[in-house]
């Protein structure tokens, strides 16, 4: 317990001081994006990893959050930062509806329904031009020139998200979530209102994903339906972050987010310009291979299988 606290303190200090150690805005940007993925991945993990409801449509909540922030600027003419709060709430509203429809279904059917939901909302956002400006997108002016405010805001959001899930999973609700994942019928027969707790899990998950979306709007200053409702780059990426890091672990999605952003940028930039150019064209291939590798050999992700990884790396035998 003690050494865990020390690790957390070191980690905290490292992240608090990071922008002063590394002044390069390029690395700061990468870490900001990675922290944003920590939030999205963790929120997915709460619903999928802990509650067992594998969502293929987290872009719904991310996108709704982003659009809430954007529409605040274009239609209400108030700061997009309000979106950080209300984007989360808007995502929760949508989540209520998504839950109402999709929680009638289980397993793969739930996954498919969320996937269809994200495609539907993307097409609505594309075609409802009077509200969203369609594919013209929403463009705002960034509030800060420096990266520091963005960094600390997203760091705070990520820390809050991880801590909230940590607390949640230690509470009674957390046990309900896991019992639903393990055996929904058994949970039901024990008197747990599974629909209620699945919805609670979904709502909290949607709130954080929506906040991350609102942050994206503020930070990137440009969104369009194909970017924020992307099946491939948001919904599937959220899943990959979760499984690579480790589902149903508190720190898994956080590790996964840094690994995925790191791998993508390393390959995209051809090992920061050291390796031959063609490597950069392989970044998507490496992504795919990484997924296959993780599922085959580290089914519980980097964090979940850390003991196993350590054994392989250090060449020691498992102690009985």
């Amino acid at each position, binding site marked *: 317990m003690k*050494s*865990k606290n*020390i*690790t957390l303190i*070191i*980690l905290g200090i*490292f992240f608090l001081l990071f922008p002063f*150690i*590394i002044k*390069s*805005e*390029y*690395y*700061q*940007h*990468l870490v900001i*994006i990675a922290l944003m993925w920590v939030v999205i991945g963790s929120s997915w993990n709460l619903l999928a990893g802990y509650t067992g409801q594998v969502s293929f449509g987290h872009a719904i909540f991310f996108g709704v959050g982003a659009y809430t922030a954007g529409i605040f600027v274009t239609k209400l003419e108030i700061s997009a930062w309000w979106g950080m709060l209300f984007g989360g709430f808007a995502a929760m509203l949508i989540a209520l509806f998504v839950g109402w429809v999709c929680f009638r279904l289980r397993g793969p059917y739930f996954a498919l329904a969320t996937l269809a939901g994200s495609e539907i909302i993307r*097409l609505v956002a*594309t*075609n409802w*031009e009077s509200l969203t400006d*369609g*594919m*013209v*997108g929403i*463009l705002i*002016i*960034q509030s800060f*020139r420096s990266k520091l405010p963005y960094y600390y805001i997203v760091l705070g959001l990520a820390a809050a998200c991880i801590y909230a899930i940590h607390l949640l999973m230690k509470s009674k609700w957390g046990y309900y979530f896991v019992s639903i994942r393990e055996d929904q019928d058994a949970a039901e027969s024990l008197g747990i209102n599974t629909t209620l707790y699945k919805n609670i899990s979904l709502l909290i998950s949607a709130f954080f994903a929506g906040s991350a979306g609102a942050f*994206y709007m503020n930070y*990137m*200053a*440009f969104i*369009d339906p*194909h*970017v924020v409702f992307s099946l491939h*780059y948001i919904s599937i990426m959220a899943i990959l972050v979760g499984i690579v890091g480790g589902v149903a672990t508190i*720190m898994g999605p956080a*590790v996964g987010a*840094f690994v995925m952003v*790191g791998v993508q*940028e390393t390959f*995209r*930039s051809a090992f*920061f*310009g050291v390796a031959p150019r063609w490597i*950069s*064209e392989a*970044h*998507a291939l490496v992504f795919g291979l990484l997924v296959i590798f993780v599922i085959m050999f580290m089914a519980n992700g*980097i*964090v979940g299988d*850390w003991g196993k990884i*350590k054994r392989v790396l250090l060449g020691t035998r498992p102690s009985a």
Partner: protein
Amino acid sequence: MKKLILVTVLLFSLGLLAGHGISFAEDTIKVGIVLPLTGDQAKFGEIEKLSFDMALEEINGKGGIKGKKIELVIEDDTGRPEVGRSVVEKLITKDKVVMIGGGYSSSVTYAVAGVCQQNQMPFLINTGAADKITEQKWDYIFRLNPPASKYSASVEELLAEVIKPKTVTILHENSLFGTSSAKSFEKSCEKAGYKVLLKQGYEAGGIDFKPVLTQVKQLNPDVVYMVSYVMDAALIMKQSKELKINPKMFIGGAAGFTLPEFQQNAGAASEKIISATLWHQVLPFPGAMDYYNKFKAKFNKETEYHGAEAYAAAYVIADVLNRTKSLKNEDIKKALSETDMMTAFGPVKFTNWDKMTNQNKASSYVVQWIDGKLEMVWPKNLAAKPFVFPVNWLKVWGY
């Protein structure tokens, strides 16, 4: 678990420090180029990259800039704004480029332009066309290509002077470029007094356009105007042929209709179609034809206006670096704003007009597919072949 975190943090910081420490000798002038080299826009990014490379070879072959060679750091934005942003941050802080060029899709270009303006890094855009990019009063952002709303200017001239339509239908893909071009074309139609019978957006990549084309056939417009990328364009024309749609003219709003792949895929259905374009090799600009021939000989494929934009941008960059007092950002910006030169793409001069700042006033032209070749037909004084009109479509299609 704790060790894992510690190790990750350590490795991460080591990696950052190592990456930070590398520096390069200053014997070249580095210019960053942002283009989509993977993803679904890679096709156009590739043409532009080859054109940049070709121009660079020529410029450096002639001795470069004041004895120094230019080095283009071409980076892949994968067509996504947040990646584009990573790229430009890297170019500015790690590669220490003196200016940035490229910019293909409008959304990525916008994200990149925002970062450039904030860092006071001169950015010469050569393709990203959404009007609003140069409407932000950003003084470090310059654009070589015209804004999307001006792409159809010469088509509108041709409509008014030759085709004289009464009714128009507009089909466009749902993308920033497609939607905004269609909107501005609709506006100019209303101004000219043509009735817009139908305006429909569609998701790129569909198989079957027949439902909407059947409606078009029923409405029987004088002009069918389409803003589509290359393969959608080919499918729409093939299916129009199948349905025997018979307007006075089919018109493409740049983008896909000028690419060789359009003709290869649509075959007979591409014949006599006209399209707006920003460039054609027969234009009387010095180097236009040379560029076209050289590209074809070197890479064994055709080039078109996107490539010409990139090729010209490289020459503008060289010209600017030659004239600038120093490699400081504000000096380069000043040199950019004083640009007044001729390129293979046409004259380049950045001025403020309408709501836009630092926007080059490039012209647009009309091309027509005649006997399987893309020929320039408008404006009249520059035309290589006479505009074929009226067209008996059923006969062209061999019915």
